[in-house]
């Protein structure tokens, strides 16, 4: 199974840069997600890998072989679309057999391999149906079977689950993961859904405005976001404006605009005392305490909202900004009511400080080392 390498891949449309010099490596058999908001360039990158869009510059390598100028139909890839893109005039069997027939597979072997592909997506009895006779989820399974049947070098997904309803999406996520593990195909998966990216991928590449923000394992992306953009985009977080008062290596003391103080262990490089910074704290990292302690702040509960397994609170810090805190519905703090007073604390190792107070994606970011 091959390794996919992108070298300074760039795509411009007129003056607009859709993908700015993207470099990344997807290891043999690895499942990598391209994650980002719409317009971040993730689909552009995927389509360049598929050969459906020609890059402005840069190279695409599979196992060291340059395929940048190889036409799509010679790339040995499988691509699963958000729209399924099944052939409506063919039966499920003929859809799945399409790629195999191009490879010259005929007769009993064709029958057997189509059946095998359909069985692996758990639709063994649907070969003679037409796509329009199937549900959305079933159509996407057929599309998946069609793309894996010819045993491609690379499997590409373009938001394949976005058209499915929530319950089906969860089910398909597990199916996808199981199938990818079984087949061990090197996979690039485009999505705007962070949960999807986190749960499926070996590594996640977060993109914003055509630039790689961070490329690492999901745990690291979540726990140690490299940029303010990643910190804001991944998880549900609070973003506060603050000023850096003093720093000692990565540890620094901050003062929020309204006077409250807090400590962070994750200051970005290049932030000097006296500068305005953006502080990012995840909702679940806002601690609600019954007693005051060092670096705690008095706050008042404004709103309580119950969201199944969790409870969310909107808080007003005394002399400070509003925050959102999230606790498990089973926790003691889940019974607080609007109007109650509470002490708020932040774990320094869960407070992220970034230079750009605007919180926008920076132009370039050092890449994380491969795990």
């Amino acid at each position, binding site marked *: 199974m091959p390794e996919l390498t992108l070298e300074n891949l760039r795509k411009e449309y007129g003056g607009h840069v859709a993908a700015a010099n993207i470099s990344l490596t997807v290891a043999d058999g690895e499942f990598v997600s391209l994650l980002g908001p719409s317009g971040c360039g993730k689909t552009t990158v995927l389509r360049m890998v*598929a*050969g*459906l869009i020609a890059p402005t510059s840069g190279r695409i390598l599979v196992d060291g072989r340059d395929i940048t100028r190889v*036409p*799509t*139909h*010679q*790339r*040995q*890839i*499988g*691509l699963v*679309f958000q*729209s399924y*893109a*099944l*052939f*409506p*005039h*063919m039966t499920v069997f003929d859809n799945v057999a*399409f*790629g195999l027939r*191009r*490879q010259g597979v005929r007769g009993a072997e064709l029958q057997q391999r189509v059946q095998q592909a359909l069985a692996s997506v758990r639709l063994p009895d649907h070969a003679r149906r*037409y796509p329009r006779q199937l549900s959305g989820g079933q159509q996407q399974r057929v*599309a998946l079977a*069609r*793309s894996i049947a*010819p045993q491609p070098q690379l499997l*590409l997904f373009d938001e394949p689950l976005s058209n499915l309803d929530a319950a089906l999406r969860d089910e398909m996520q597990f199916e996808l993961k199981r199938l990818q593990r079984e087949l061990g195909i090197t996979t690039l998966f485009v999505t705007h859904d962070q949960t999807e990216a986190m749960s499926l991928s070996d590594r996640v590449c977060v993109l914003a405005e055509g630039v790689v923000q961070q490329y690492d394992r999901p745990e690291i992306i979540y726990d140690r976001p490299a940029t303010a953009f990643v910190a804001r985009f991944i998880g549900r977080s609070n973003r506060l404006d603050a000023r850096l008062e003093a720093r000692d290596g990565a540890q620094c003391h901050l003062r929020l605009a309204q006077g409250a103080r807090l400590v962070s262990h994750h200051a970005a490089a290049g932030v000097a005392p006296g500068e305005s910074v953006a502080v990012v704290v995840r909702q679940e990292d806002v601690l609600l305490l019954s007693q005051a302690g060092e670096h705690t702040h008095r706050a008042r509960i404004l709103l309580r909202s119950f969201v199944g397994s969790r409870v969310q609170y909107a808080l007003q810090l005394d002399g400070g900004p509003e925050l959102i805190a999230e606790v498990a519905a089973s926790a003691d703090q889940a019974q607080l009511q609007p109007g109650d007073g509470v002490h708020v604390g932040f774990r320094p190792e869960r407070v992220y400080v970034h230079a750009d107070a605007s919180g926008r994606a920076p132009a370039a970011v050092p890449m994380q080392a491969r795990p």
Partner: protein
Amino acid sequence: MSTRLAAWGLMSPLGVVLLLIFVAPVLFMVPLSFQEYIPGMGTSGAWTLENYTQIATDGYYREIIGRTLVLGLGVTALCLLLGYPLAWCMTRVGPRLRLALTLLVIFPMLLNLVVRAFGWIALLADHGLINNLLMDWGLIEAPVRMMFNLSGLLVGMTHIYLPFMVLMLVPAIQSVPQDVHDAAATLAAGRARIFWSVTLPMTAPGILAGSILVFVLSISALVTPRMLGGATYKVVATLIYDEFLLTLNWPSGAALAFVLTIIALAVVALSNRVLGRWGGLS
């Protein structure tokens, strides 16, 4: 239920008009086609099947019916062969060029049929532009017959019915999603394979609609065959015209009209089945 009632209500004015003005007169012709005809006298009042049996047995009629069908199928095939690439181009170019091409396609329809037929006569006649040029250049010695025969009718009628075909094909080609093309490409299909296996069958509904329209229009056309075919090279439509207005044999004309209608319906039904199966519609 109420929406269905409303639908019938909204359709009924047009339905009544169509029934009274178009269907009723046609149905009145059914008894006429079974009347005995006596030359110079008109109908005798006796019932007979002869009007139909003579169409089936008389070689003269059979030849004209065959010629009409060949003409209809030929015009349809030519319109499809010329129209499909044009329609395909129109879906691939930018909006400005598409508008220009659409206007070009529609433009001939703004001219009167007779004018267009005369245009072709000026080109195709024994001493028309083409023959004169070819003879001036010494490529031929005597004029080549291009009118009053099948080729002349094919050329003239393809020109007239091409816009109908193109206008039916453009939306059909447009409705094939780009993703489906791309999917075929990722499955190792080259351009030619994608066209034959995906684009063409997926546009079957448009091909079918355009072909039926052109076929039906061309086998029932009167003016162009009359002008380019003359009085001797007849098709069914001109024959019916002559039976009604020259020989005054209304029963025979009515019977011919019904035979033509039934043949047309049969061809339409057959092509519907065949193309429908190919395009995965049935």
